[in-house]
């Protein structure tokens, strides 16, 4: 494992950069626990200061240190995205592979559920949930709701791949060689869908974090948990874009972009490594 990582770093620039970014983010998360100010408190520093030696990313119009806000916001947003992605990936893998492999009635039942979830229009539902839950509409709740909404689409994608995999000879072989369904799915099919899962993870995180931001911008989230969305919400409600407090907007946006480019590079290099048909694994001359 260690050698793999070492050589990945040494020989795969994408991985190196991606890993570096990831480490930065982890550092930020760790750092966030040492913030000198309580996350939600305002007017703890003079407002509207541009970036300088003391306040690296300046201060917001709410008298908060943009840097520390960013660190804490990154922590929450990252946790948020990962949480949603993780939970929903599991759901979609289980449903997608099973349905695609088993076919027949199982497939129909699973897809009926899948499609029902898929067709429910997410945005109004989220807004409605906000109204219903009000004070309870906290960070964790949102993670759960979004995971519950965000798996169906990818489950279908995975299913369609699993369906074509099933017609491959190696599947038939493994069936005749008496492998259990679980074993076939996990050992034979999983590696094939992994690259797609990685791609969907990215998109899922973009989707969930984007959702969080959209809801925040419209004021449908818990203002006491600083996230990227909350930063943008406050910046926006203080007209930061036009009143020249650019750093207040630039910080979260920059952070998000870097975060996703990092994720993308990682998933790219990971595909190379995991994809069973990438030249490397076929090198058994």
């Amino acid at each position, binding site marked *: 494992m260690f050698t793999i990582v070492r050589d990945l770093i040494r020989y795969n620039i994408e991985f190196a950069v991606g890993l570096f970014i990831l480490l930065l983010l982890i550092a930020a998360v760790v750092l966030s626990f040492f913030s000198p100010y309580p996350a939600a408190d305002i007017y703890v520093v003079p407002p509207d200061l541009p970036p300088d030696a003391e306040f690296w990313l300046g201060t917001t119009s709410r008298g908060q240190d943009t840097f520390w806000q960013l660190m804490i916001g990154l922590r929450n947003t990252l946790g948020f995205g990962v949480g949603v992605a993780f939970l929903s990936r599991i759901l979609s893998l289980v449903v997608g592979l099973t349905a695609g492999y088993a076919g027949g009635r199982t497939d129909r039942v699973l897809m009926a559920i899948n*499609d029902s979830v898929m*067709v429910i229009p997410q945005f109004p539902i989220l807004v*409605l949930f906000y*109204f219903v839950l*009000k004070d309870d509409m906290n960070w964790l709740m949102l993670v759960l709701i979004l995971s519950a909404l965000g798996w169906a689409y990818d489950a279908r994608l995975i299913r369609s791949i699993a369906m*074509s995999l099933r017609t491959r000879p190696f599947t038939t072989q493994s069936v005749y060689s008496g492998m259990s369904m679980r074993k076939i799915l996990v050992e034979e099919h999983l590696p094939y869908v992994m690259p797609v899962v990685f791609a969907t993870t990215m998109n899922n995180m973009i989707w969930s974090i984007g959702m969080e931001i959209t809801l925040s911008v419209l004021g449908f989230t818990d203002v006491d948990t600083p996230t990227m969305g909350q930063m943008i919400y406050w910046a926006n409600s203080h007209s930061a874009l036009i009143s020249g407090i650019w750093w207040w907007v630039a910080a979260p946006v920059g952070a998000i972009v870097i975060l996703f480019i990092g994720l993308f590079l990682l998933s790219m290099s990971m595909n190379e490594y995991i994809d069973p048909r990438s*030249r490397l694994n076929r090198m058994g001359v």
Partner: protein
Amino acid sequence: MTAYLIFISRRFGQLLLVVFLGISATFFITHMTPVDPVAESITAITNFGKADPEAILLMRKTLTELYGLQGNLFEQYLQFWSRLARGDLGPSLSAFPTPVSQIILRALPWTVGLMISATLISFLLGNTLGALAGYYRNSRLLKLAGLALIGLQPIPYYILAFILLILFGYVWPVLPITGGYEMNADTSFSLTLVLDILRHSILPAMALVMVGAGSWLTGMRALTSNIVTEDYVTFAELGGVGSTRILRSYVVRNALVPQLTGLAMSLGAIFNGTVITEIVFGYPGIGSLLISAVHAGDYSLVLGLASLSIVGVAIAVFLIDILSPLLDPRMKAE
């Protein structure tokens, strides 16, 4: 062939089931909202003007009857379905007594027009670049293009839209920043109107494409990079088949099935509208209609819009299911 017909009819049954489940779920969640349409309506009436408490209590009574909100949830649920069965979405509560359908149909064409073109453009752009990037793995240019799109994709849509608005509306004011056509425009069909509408749709569409193309690109790239290692691609290369032909008929053609599923989905999903686009660019559409309906506790309008998008997505899924066996012959109709 008959097997295929059976398959279709079975899937159609599933379609109906899904629509039923989806709409029912939405119905009950919608009615969980604490927002009370009557109270909303009263607020709208009395918030600024003279308000006599006695009168307001009277108003509550009459409006509740008028809006047909008496009766428990289940009764309302049955009533809802019996109306829907007759294709009637009922009157909007926040725009009483105007029929929901009339309100939706007014805004719908705009959403559909903008979203379909934006979706198609980003699909083609993203997949083309994705396929090329997956096939010509070490092309610097493609890597850059890819990174650019992937870098744009996570930018919060609101911010991206606003930056575009500032750039093309203020810094370099070449494009209109608001509305679907200019104010006081003559809405009878004419070339000027078409150009005007086109012109107003550029910024919103641009923003949608910028954030939309990236995910297609990543998906397609992943699929392609798998397919290029397939034997039939190697064989075709040995067979001296031209690389564009290989890319189109072998690589893309095989990657297309999952991607088309995605396309159908996003086309089905366009009925969700694009709230932020509509807010930022003041573009007409059903997105902001939905938000205001939710705020106003206008169940019937929310349900009308929700049902629309539910049916839209469900049909998209249905179509892709019955078509995919034709796209990928290996999939037996199941």
